[in-house]
């Protein structure tokens, strides 16, 4: 049921009537907490108690779907305050804003620029996934026009930023099927805005003045029977955003506070790209469901933001790996450069890579991301396997005119088998990567001639 005995007990009528078959309300509460009884057994239970118990069974943060097709994604559904406790699940959506006050050509140009913000990093595609169209013109017709231009020029998720119900309604005529986020319902417009969101079945952002007014407003919207929500505490100053984001996440996880049980949207308010990037990175690390930037569209500026997101949302329970079974060049190696064999556990790989003083080849063997000794002990770093990978999956034989593979001294024991299976000579290098500088400077020449 999710609630503790004490919480349940406080919501029971405390009549101790015994009609539920348990001697006291306290005993009944303890049975309920252990799922050994049903609330229906109590004749006097209040609606409030029923709701509280049902809410406790729900996840602390609801999942909200936004966008369609390739760009459709889930926000929210988080369960952690710190990623090392388990993991963060659904990446922060990164949006860049486009103003409807610009002329058609400028809008088109900016959207094209945004649409190019796709990168490949460590084998994964990372990209800006949302475009926020802002109704700066205060004119419903211009807003609709701008939204249409944006929609025609990108498949990315749309956020319609306008507190004018008519403007949003008009814009939805052309893009409702893209499942955009409507931003935002406020104290003044929430009834109509919620109606519009409901009709179009689009997610709706609820914007408060501060945390208290946000909680009240979210409850009012929920009372209108709409829970497809994203929330905004209204903070724009970085330290206040940080505080609000933290309170929202903690209230959800620790106290199961239902008015905040939704993904959040935040806005970077910095005046320069550098400030915006710093703010966006902070909000990504601190629980933002969506972060909207307005100043920043350059490739060089967005790559760090997207890299932060990729790293923060990386699952810490899974070892980080590098692309295995390929030849990586360090510096400008030639046919006389050493060939170093290691594993694809990123900690191991980069320890080796970082210690190489000059030109060399490294081949990370796929060990499921385990370290050298772990892989060796688990039979994932044996002579036969390495031989197969080196000879059949890489072209290292064509790149060097020597026939020497260098392995760590920790696994010297595999050298016989590796030589036998691969046809290469095995050089047993230093045990620790820190010895590579010395090895390459003082020993490699001799090994090469040996």
């Amino acid at each position, binding site marked *: 049921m999710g609630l503790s005995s*004490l*919480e349940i007990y*406080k919501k029971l009528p405390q009549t101790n009537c015994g009609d539920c078959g348990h001697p006291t309300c*306290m005993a009944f509460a303890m049975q309920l907490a252990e799922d050994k009884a049903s609330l229906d057994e109590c004749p006097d239970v209040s609606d409030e108690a029923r709701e509280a118990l049902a809410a406790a069974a729900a996840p602390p943060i609801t999942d909200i779907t936004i966008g369609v097709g390739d760009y459709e994604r889930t926000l929210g559904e988080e369960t952690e305050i710190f990623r090392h406790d388990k993991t963060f699940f659904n990446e922060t959506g990164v949006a860049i804003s486009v103003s409807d006050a610009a002329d058609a050509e400028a809008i088109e140009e900016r959207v094209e620029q945004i649409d190019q913000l796709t990168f490949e990093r460590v084998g994964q595609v990372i990209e800006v996934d949302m475009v926020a169209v802002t109704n700066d013109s205060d004119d419903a017709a211009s807003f609709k026009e701008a939204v249409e231009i944006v929609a025609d020029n990108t498949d990315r998720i749309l956020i319609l930023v306008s507190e004018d119900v008519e403007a949003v309604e008009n814009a939805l005529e052309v893009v409702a099927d893209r499942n955009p986020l409507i931003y935002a319902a406020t104290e003044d417009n929430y009834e109509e805005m919620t109606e519009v969101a409901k009709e179009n079945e689009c997610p709706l952002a609820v914007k408060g003045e501060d945390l208290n007014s946000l909680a009240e407003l979210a409850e009012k919207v929920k009372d209108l029977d709409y829970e497809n929500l994203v929330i905004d505490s209204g903070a724009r100053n970085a330290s206040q955003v940080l505080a609000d984001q933290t309170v929202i996440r903690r209230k959800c996880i620790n106290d199961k506070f239902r008015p905040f049980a939704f993904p959040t949207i935040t806005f970077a308010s910095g005046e320069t790209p550098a400030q915006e990037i710093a703010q966006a990175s902070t909000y990504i690390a601190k629980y933002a469901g969506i972060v909207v930037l307005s100043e920043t569209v350059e490739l060089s500026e967005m790559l760090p933001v997207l890299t932060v997101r990729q790293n923060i949302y990386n699952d810490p329970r899974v070892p980080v790996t590098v692309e295995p079974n390929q030849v990586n060049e360090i510096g400008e190696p030639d046919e006389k450069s050493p060939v170093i064999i290691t594993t694809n556990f990123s900690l191991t790989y980069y320890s080796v890579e970082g210690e190489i003083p000059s030109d060399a080849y490294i081949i990370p063997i796929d060990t499921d991301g385990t370290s050298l000794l772990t892989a060796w002990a688990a039979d994932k770093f044996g002579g036969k396997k390495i031989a197969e990978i080196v000879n059949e999956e890489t072209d290292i034989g064509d790149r060097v005119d020597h026939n020497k593979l260098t392995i760590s001294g920790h696994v010297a024991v595999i050298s016989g088998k590796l030589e036998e299976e691969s046809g290469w000579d095995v050089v047993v290098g230093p045990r620790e990567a820190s010895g590579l500088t010395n090895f390459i400077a003082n020993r490699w020449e001799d090994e090469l001639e040996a």
Partner: protein
Amino acid sequence: MIIIGERINGMFNDIGEAIKNEDPEPIQEWAVKQVEAGADYLDANVGPAVEDSPEVMKWLVEVIQDEVDAPVALDTTNVDAIEAGLEVHEGSAMINSTTAQPEKMESILPLVAEYDANVIGLAMDKSGVPKDAETRTAKAMEIIANADARGIPMENLFIDPLILPVNVAQDHAPEVLETIQRVKKLADPAPNTVLGLSNVSQNCNNMKLINRTFLVMAMAVGLDSVIAEANDEDLIDAVATAEIVLNNDVYCDSFLNQFRKK
């Protein structure tokens, strides 16, 4: 792990004598020794040698806190003595203890609330120590609900599921372990749990081995605190090790020393 050092108890001859003679020295010596060994609280019990009066408890608290910063666990059934101790105590004291008996809670819990103190709640009432985990948990729940109703935060509450000696009440130990697990789920945040550890091995052979083995087992199911012999080096080593294995403390090679320095 919160360790409540048990040594300042009039039951021990040196302490009994010291109290009788109003000699602070042996008491302060043990206060320092226990704190240095890792004790977070110092239990103070007048013992059988002199009458358990408010004046003696007050004197004990002052003598201890003159020498060390550690808070004191006021170990007495005399409510006036508790209040006298609380009046002179600096920082947040601990009251040892109340049971689930309504009149007992009625007299102790208001003091806990008033002085922002901690309190040990024994999972029993006037019918004695329950045999099974279920009844122990029900008694704990009564204390929890009562404390909560008085605005006492759960972190100030230490539920003691009451361990009995394994030589004469062997079947109680597993019930106690189960009770600890259940009590931790009764409220969110959960109340603390505590054991009077030495009880488990009374009149047994290998007392210290029994103590530390049981303590580690209890920690594994959620024990937060223990009244024990803080100067039993092996016991503290076992606690420090259990903290590491439970991922409560971050491992380092000198974890045994680090635990004592906390």
